[in-house]
């Protein structure tokens, strides 16, 4: 029962983040949407650990991996944003269309 509620919370966070990642024009705001999606994954992983297999610590290790993926995404994303801005003055997703086929 509680597992369902936690999973619904995770789905809501992921959906809100997905909306932001798809709809925002600013590249920095797109990254905020991605962060929110990863927050949903964190809630879901923690709920699975607590409600399904709390005796093994493997779920906690998965959470650590997700947390570090979050920071890596942030650091690499900002580096790319700065490089994009320096090369082509692009701070919006529609302006970074070099790879459009």
């Amino acid at each position, binding site marked *: 029962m509680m597992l369902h*509620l936690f999973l619904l919370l995770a789905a809501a*966070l992921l959906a809100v983040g997905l909306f*932001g990642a798809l709809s925002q024009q600013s590249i920095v705001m797109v990254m*905020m949407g991605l962060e929110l999606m990863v927050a949903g994954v964190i*809630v879901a992983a923690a709920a699975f650990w607590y*409600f399904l*297999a709390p005796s*093994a610590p493997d779920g906690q290790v998965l959470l650590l991996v997700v947390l570090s993926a979050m920071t890596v995404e942030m650091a690499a994303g900002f580096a790319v944003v700065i490089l994009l801005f320096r090369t082509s003055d692009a701070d919006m997703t529609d302006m970074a269309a070099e790879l459009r086929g």
Partner: protein
Amino acid sequence: MSAAGIAVFAALAVIAVAAGIAVFVVDSMARATFALALSFVAVGGELVLLTLAYLGVVTILMMVMEMAIMVIFMVMFMMNPAGLMPMSMLHNKRGALAISVGTFALLAAGALAVPWPARHGAVPAPAQTTRAAGEAIMGGQMPVMVGISAVLFATIVSALVLAVPHGRYDHAARDARSLHDRGLHDNARHGGTHHDGTLHDGGDRR
């Protein structure tokens, strides 16, 4: 979970989702950053509620610091500084809304419909969960931590290589700019200096 626990869960869940929605609704990108920080604090609270005190506190501390740094980037890339350039920050709002609502419906249906297995084993005491995680990453799960540390180091190096002005990809930036300038002023080719005053050497020294 006790009734008080359910009430705390509900309050934190409402805060997390409402702050998450506020990120994309508020007009100012700085306010959006603080809304995201609030959302992450609520998520960390949910982890503490699930007896994951260490991971919950780490989430809160890490995300509050990250959002404090993020505010600087937000000011750098602000689209509507001080409300002087009112504009919509969205594109394809209807399509994005349809996709995200569809995703939520799909995930919610899966969460409610899947017959989840019963709990396997007992929940350890809160002090024991952190200890078990520490022993796991120093024991059987050590390859995971070794992998993470290598990835984090690679991220530091690659972020610096990409972002530092006098780094590996700096000349790409200068070449792109000078091409751009030449396109604008066709007669002013090879003026001897770049727009930033450096001597023109073709930018291919490296």
